[in-house]
């Protein structure tokens, strides 16, 4: 029985896990965060400047006081050097995408990851009223970029500074931690949905398709006398709740992964949460797709002349 269960949850041994998942995490999250920040640029002043919808001093009053905000940093340094709020804002506006580009290229990877996370946390804390799921999951991904040896593969650090690759065992431990976190996230997300009756009777899907419908041209009214909202509601709950189980079973992994990717693509399409969905898909591919890609069989090294003579 024990062997049977072990076989079901069989993971490839550390040496055969494809370390490309670290590249996927680093490049994926750096690229999406960069695109996300750029998407905000046309309206940057409407959200952060002194003439924003929620002016910075008001937003600062409700920020999480464990971390600074752009406004609180401005207030702190204003006492030391005369500087305008716009100048501090510009500093963040330039530095954050720059650190993300460094992270993407794998140049000074760890300092770039630490700086990206710090700046991301400060920026998110400065717009507490505007922040949603994508900000949290970006923080999680950036945090793991700080901890894991993500700069040891396909990076400028390797190319220019000859960064040594970590052991397969260490990479495997990092992956296990990351996978566990992703599993916990989905399990609790499913559990919290299951607790409310609206997900069990299809009401949440109905409300989502009408209240949060990003595809205004599509009318979903016809669904009221079909069991579709009910089925999608239950499918969502089950997909998330049973994620830790079925994603770790070798035989069901690709199906569950496909299901969760379709789920996030649907969120992007129907709710317009493009960046949130992209981040979630990257997290999933990093945890359960990239490590299981079989690498090309190694090309045998040509034998040296003495070996050939000996042969």
């Amino acid at each position: 029985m024990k062997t049977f269960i072990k076989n079901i949850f069989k993971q490839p041994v550390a040496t055969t896990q494809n370390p490309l998942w670290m590249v996927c995490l680093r490049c994926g999250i750096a690229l999406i965060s960069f695109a996300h920040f750029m998407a905000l640029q046309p309206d940057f002043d409407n959200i952060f400047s002194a003439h924003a919808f929620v002016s910075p001093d008001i937003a600062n009053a409700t920020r999480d006081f464990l971390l600074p905000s752009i406004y609180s940093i401005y207030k702190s340094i204003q006492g030391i050097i005369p500087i305008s709020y716009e100048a501090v804002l510009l500093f963040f506006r330039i530095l954050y995408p720059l650190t993300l580009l460094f992270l993407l290229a794998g140049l000074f990877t760890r300092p770039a990851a630490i700086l990206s996370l710090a700046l991301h946390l400060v920026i998110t804390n400065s717009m507490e009223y505007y922040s949603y799921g994508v900000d949290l999951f970006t923080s999680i991904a950036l945090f793991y970029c700080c901890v894991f040896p993500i700069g040891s593969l396909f990076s400028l650090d390797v190319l220019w500074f000859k960064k040594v690759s970590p052991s397969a065992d260490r990479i495997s431990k990092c992956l296990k931690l990351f996978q566990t976190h992703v599993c916990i996230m989905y399990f609790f997300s499913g559990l919290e949905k299951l607790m409310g009756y609206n997900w069990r009777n299809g009401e949440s899907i109905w409300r989502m398709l009408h209240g949060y419908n990003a595809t205004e041209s599509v009318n979903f009214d016809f669904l009221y006398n079909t069991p579709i909202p009910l089925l999608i509601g239950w499918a969502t709950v089950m997909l998330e709740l049973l994620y830790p189980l079925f994603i770790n079973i070798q035989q069901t992994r690709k199906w569950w992964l496909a299901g969760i990717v379709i789920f996030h693509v649907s969120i992007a399409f129907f709710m317009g949460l493009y960046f949130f969905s992209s981040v979630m898909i990257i997290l999933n591919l990093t945890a359960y797709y990239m490590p299981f890609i079989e690498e090309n069989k190694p090309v045998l090294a040509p034998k040296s002349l003495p070996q050939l003579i000996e042969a």
Partner: protein
Amino acid sequence: MSTGWRLKLPAIFFYFMKTRAVIFSIWSRFHIVFIVLTSVFFAYDKLYRFYKVKENAPVQYFYNNLFFNTPFRYYGKLTAAGSPYGYFAPNIRASGLIIGESGGKKYTALFNGFEAAMRFSVLSARVTNNLIDSRDSTDHKLEDRFMDLLFKSIAVKIYNQNKCTQDSLFVSYNIVGFPTLKEYTAGNRQPYLIKLKEVKISK
């Protein structure tokens, strides 16, 4: 470099690597326990709020006095491990809408990009949710005054953005609702708008 040191350096290196591996192992276990405990708390908290169940005193004591202490809260914030994951759970609330009105014309917040518009809808939902939640309580004078300030800040921006020519603008905070499946089946098919609050700003 002396021969002694040449021999010692690899040993120190391997000792450091081993220690690092042990530290990583211990920390990763702690990190997972931390995430699980945080998630359990948020799930419990949502359940309690949604069904208005009486709080369990020992659970509350554990979380408020022992778990959510300052170092742990810092840890949770910096590692992003101290946040809930159950978005749109246990239910999906009605979305909020902020509308300006002046001289018979309607005004809304203007954006150049989709992402900022999305974030503004998050702001609208937060503000309107706050209005619904605070109806249950009576003693929130400071918070109410702060919210008034927030409403006025948004109203002024909408006024300036739309280059209103009138002397005053009314900005209302509304809930956009859609009939439930049951109501829709029964024939009630019209979406509705419930005005929660209105703010007037004048030149």
